[in-house]
């Protein structure tokens, strides 16, 4: 990996610096320095990717301090920009370069941001959202005019979401403002690097040597895992023992709520009183920063974290990664392993802790996949979202008058928009300018007006609204949690829907402590710490993680292959045997399903192992048929393995539901009116700027401030069914659904339906009952339930219906 010839090309001060560290530059680092055009560097974690990205900047600075902003570094995580700034400070100081390095994220103070607009640093570390915001200022051409380099870190992660589309549009803008700019994308190992270069708008691929194979296994655990649940608390003692043996351990867990619970479970068995931290995105910023700093200075022995600490962070001397719960997709697993032992030449050590017996299978399958060096395929279609383009157009208009032809040419230089038809661009521009409605309602109140061929903001006040709503991450509404009434210490954030389910006196976990819910005031959740009590309500919904289709196929193969069971723990073998006894074990080539009752509802579980998209689509198709058959479906949830539908009446004969003939009959209205579509619309309308998340002056509580995006959706469907946002919504929803043709074919090729009616929840169904991402069905079942509840409430209150109830 060390290349003596290449290191000879380093400028002398840099070569001396490398020598002083006792390092030699990697070949890919030298290649980056030598490259004359845009590059995409693919290197495993620990391969010195980030340094490679900054080498050309450091080399240039050795020849003289640049004038103004020279290098822009963009990463998906705020924490990463902070971290990189710290790491970069060392070589810059050692080399005696007078380079100013600053970060700029949503956490940066307003004064500092204002100063950066007037006097930008030489190296600016930022996120896609903050870059978009900078591009919306009239000063943008001046700030970026001397820009020479853009370094995009973790570009493989950015390319998976709309944030990547936004960043590529911003990059296209930067290329117009600074035509000589050179772009370097830094990526972890991916299946298809060429798709990534297309995403970048073309680049030379630099491929680093792959590192050694990771040392990865399932953590030996003394107790048997539970049937269901995702917390992993049963393994706390074994995890603690592993932490005691390691120098610094990162414990990853999939959701924030689980991180809270697991942290508490660990704390309860921390007999040696080791310093352990908790890090997740709902914690207050100061608290997160404290943990990050303690970790960097080596004061911690373990950190329990969610995705907030994920991607490429380079903190301290992590030598062990423990993953609680199934890794869900192999790529994520490989990246997390990369955290351990951040050195190129030594294998990383990682241990998996399945949270339940089903996940034992999933973990086994993931290990097989890693061993086979089989990454998940890069799923997302890299065509840019039109909602993101709408937001971009509005952002550009904030910076100054725009020329439609020029902007179109510029936009098509962004990889994801390379094939964008002019008509679609014009539709987006029209949406931003007029709302794009069939009825030309806003002639006088357009957002953008055309003067002398250029588009201007009609009302300059609109710029503030647009800037406040920049970004493509549409998270659930979060409420801040504070201790005590009136401005107590902030403890973190919870989802609004979770807050709505609380009654005064309920206790829940946040920041590793149990708190009692007191009241909701001005959109702040006020709580009182209850250190001695067990939380009554343990869970609030976290992120929905998708497993890959490849992984689910491996899991089914494991279940079907009795000889492979030998490798499974005894508890898992017993559990599989139990599923076989009270219901049926799914076999490849069949449709295995079961119906059982629980908590006043009927459940129908179908184990297709066909992937989440296919199961989600099946959920829509089957609930439609169930509605028609009078079974009153109430909702469903789809995973990669299975589909679970709950209803008021039981499915006794699944054959007519799964008949491929006539499956699509009457589906149009059902599809258009379902919650999957409405959820997508909410995201699309928010990104495109129809729904504003942030309003000047903060959010007012309750009345009239908000109304549901569902109403906008239904209104558009009724009065303007071809509206741009509905077109985008349909296209995006279809990405999350499988083609109907594929579903029909699956049903035809798997005609053998195996159905059982177990007396209670089965081992396989148990984890499904806890799955997040439930889709409600608002049809006859919901109406019936409402009616029953209303009538029951009247009875319990001893009241009868009018006319006998006058006041």
């Amino acid at each position, binding site marked *: 990996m060390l290349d003596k010839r290449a290191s000879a090309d380093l400028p002398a001060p840099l070569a001396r610096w490398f020598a002083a560290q006792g390092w030699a530059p990697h070949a890919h680092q030298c290649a980056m320095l030598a490259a004359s055009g845009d590059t995409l560097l693919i290197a495993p974690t620990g391969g010195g990717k980030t340094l490679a990205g900054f080498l050309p900047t450091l080399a240039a600075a050795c020849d003289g301090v640049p004038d103004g902003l020279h290098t822009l570094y963009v990463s998906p995580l705020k924490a990463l920009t902070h971290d990189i700034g710290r790491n970069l400070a060392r070589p810059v100081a050692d080399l005696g370069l007078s380079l100013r390095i600053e970060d700029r994220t949503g956490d940066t103070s307003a004064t500092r941001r204002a100063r950066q607009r007037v006097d930008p640093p030489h190296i600016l570390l930022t996120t896609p959202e903050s870059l978009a915001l900078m591009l919306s200022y009239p000063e943008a051409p001046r700030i970026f005019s001397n820009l020479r380099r853009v370094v995009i870190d973790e570009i493989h992660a950015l390319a998976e979401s709309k944030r990547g589309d936004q960043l590529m549009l911003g990059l296209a803008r930067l290329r117009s403002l600074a035509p000589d700019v050179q772009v370097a994308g830094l990526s972890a190992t991916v299946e298809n690097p060429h798709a990534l270069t297309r995403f970048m708008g073309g680049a030379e691929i630099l491929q680093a040597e792959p590192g050694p194979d990771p040392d990865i296994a399932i953590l030996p655990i003394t107790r048997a895992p539970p049937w269901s649940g995702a917390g992993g608390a049963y393994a706390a003692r074994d995890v603690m023992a592993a932490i005691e043996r390691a120098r610094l351990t990162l414990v990853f867990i999939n959701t924030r709520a689980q991180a809270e619970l697991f942290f508490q479970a660990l704390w309860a068995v921390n007999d040696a009183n080791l310093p352990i931290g908790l890090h997740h995105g709902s914690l207050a910023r100061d608290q997160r920063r404290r943990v990050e700093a303690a970790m960097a200075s080596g004061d911690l022995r373990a950190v329990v974290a969610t995705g907030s600490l994920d991607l490429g962070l380079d903190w301290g001397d992590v030598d062990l990664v423990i993953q609680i719960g199934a890794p869900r997709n192999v790529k994520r697993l490989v990246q997390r392993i990369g955290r351990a032992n951040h050195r190129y030449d030594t294998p990383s050590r990682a241990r998996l802790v399945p949270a339940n017996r089903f996940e034992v299978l999933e973990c086994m399958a993931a290990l097989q996949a890693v061993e086979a060096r089989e990454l998940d395929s890069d799923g997302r279609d890299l065509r840019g979202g039109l909602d993101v383009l709408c937001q971009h157009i509005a952002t550009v208009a904030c910076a100054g008058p725009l020329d439609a032809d020029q902007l179109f040419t510029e936009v098509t230089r962004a990889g994801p928009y390379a094939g964008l038809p002019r008509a679609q661009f014009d539709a987006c521009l029209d949406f931003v300018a*007029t*709302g794009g*409605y069939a*009825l030309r*309602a*806003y002639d*006088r*109140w357009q*957002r953008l007006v055309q003067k002398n061929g250029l588009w201007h903001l*009609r*009302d300059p*006040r*609109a710029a503030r*609204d647009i800037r406040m709503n920049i970004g493509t991450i549409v998270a659930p509404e979060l409420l801040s949690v504070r201790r005590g009434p009136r401005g107590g210490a902030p403890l973190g954030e919870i989802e609004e829907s979770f807050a*709505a389910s609380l009654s005064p006196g309920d206790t829940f976990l946040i920041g590793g402590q149990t708190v009692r819910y007191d009241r909701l005031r001005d959109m702040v959740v006020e709580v009182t710490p209850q250190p001695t009590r067990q939380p009554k309500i343990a869970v609030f919904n976290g992120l929905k993680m998708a497993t890959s289709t490849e992984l689910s196929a491996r899991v089914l193969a494991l279940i079907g292959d009795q000889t492979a069971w030998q490798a499974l723990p005894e508890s898992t073998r017993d559990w599989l045997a139990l599923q076989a006894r009270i219901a049926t074990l799914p076999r490849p080539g069949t449709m295995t399903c079961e119906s059982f*009752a629980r*908590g*006043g*509802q009927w459940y129908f579980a179908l184990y297709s192992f066909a992937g989440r998209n296919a199961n989600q689509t099946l959920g829509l198709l089957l609930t439609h048929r169930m509605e028609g058959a009078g079974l009153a479906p109430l909702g469903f949830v789809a995973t990669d393995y299975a589909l679970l539908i709950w209803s008021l009446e039981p499915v006794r004969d699944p054959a007519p539901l799964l008949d491929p003939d006539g499956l699509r009959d009457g589906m149009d209205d059902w599809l258009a009116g379902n919650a999957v579509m409405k959820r997508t619309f909410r995201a699309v309308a928010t990104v495109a*700027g*129809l*729904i*504003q998340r942030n309003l000047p002056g903060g959010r007012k509580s*309750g*009345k*009239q*401030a*908000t*109304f*549901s995006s569902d*109403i*906008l959706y239904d*209104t*558009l469907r*009724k*009065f*303007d069914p071809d*509206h741009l946002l509905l077109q985008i919504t349909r296209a995006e929803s279809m990405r999350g659904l499988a083609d109907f043709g594929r579903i029909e074919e699956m049903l035809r090729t798997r005609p053998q339906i195996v159905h059982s009616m177990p007396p209670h929840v089965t081992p396989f169904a148990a984890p499904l009952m806890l799955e997040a991402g439930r889709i*409600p069905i*608002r049809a006859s079942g*919901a*109406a019936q*339930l*409402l*009616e*029953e*509840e*209303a*009538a029951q*409430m*009247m009875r*319990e*209150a001893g*009241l009868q*219906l*009018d*006319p006998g*109830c*006058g*006041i």
Partner: protein
Amino acid sequence: MSHLMFHYHGQDFVARASGALFWPAQDTLIVADLHLGKSERLARRGGALLPPFETRATLERVLAELDATGAAHLICLGDSFDDDLACAELDTELALICGRTQVTWISGNHDPAPVALPGFQVPGVTLNGLHLRHIAAQGPDISGHYHPKLRVAGQRIAAFLIGHEHLILPAFGHYTGGLDWDDAALRALVPEGRAILTGTKAQMVPLPLPQLRKRRLR
């Protein structure tokens, strides 16, 4: 049965599933918080360009209710227009309604001084001892303003609140949010009594809502 009859201070009323209130003895339909012209007002101030169909959607529903009840009078309990300017822009739409019914416009906080409108414009009226006004005050009265909602069976539903001194109507307008009955402002006005849920069917529930046991399967 999609509508529900109830008594309030010795009078018979019909709660319509749509959220409108029909008073048979007065041959009058009462609606609250139409918020006509809301999307227009937002656009005028440089805000989001919402689908400009809510005025049409709201008025279509008012007309349907007038047809269904055959009411000779219509009383709007204030906030009929999202602001006074919006009111000025809606001539053609309003002519439709005012042409067939005698309309009384009670002013609200959004439309304190509407410009020339067909029909009567008043701060409030008193009919048969009941005060009709925008915001609940000295009872017994019938009012709007709060856009009350209730959470039942996992859904958030616009509702009539019927207390001892106050009858509060849900918002009839299309783009209107709502305030949960649990909110201190509403609880203070209607601490107990009953509510009528709107939607596809008008259904009565007691206030406060009793806790229910799990549903049993048949």
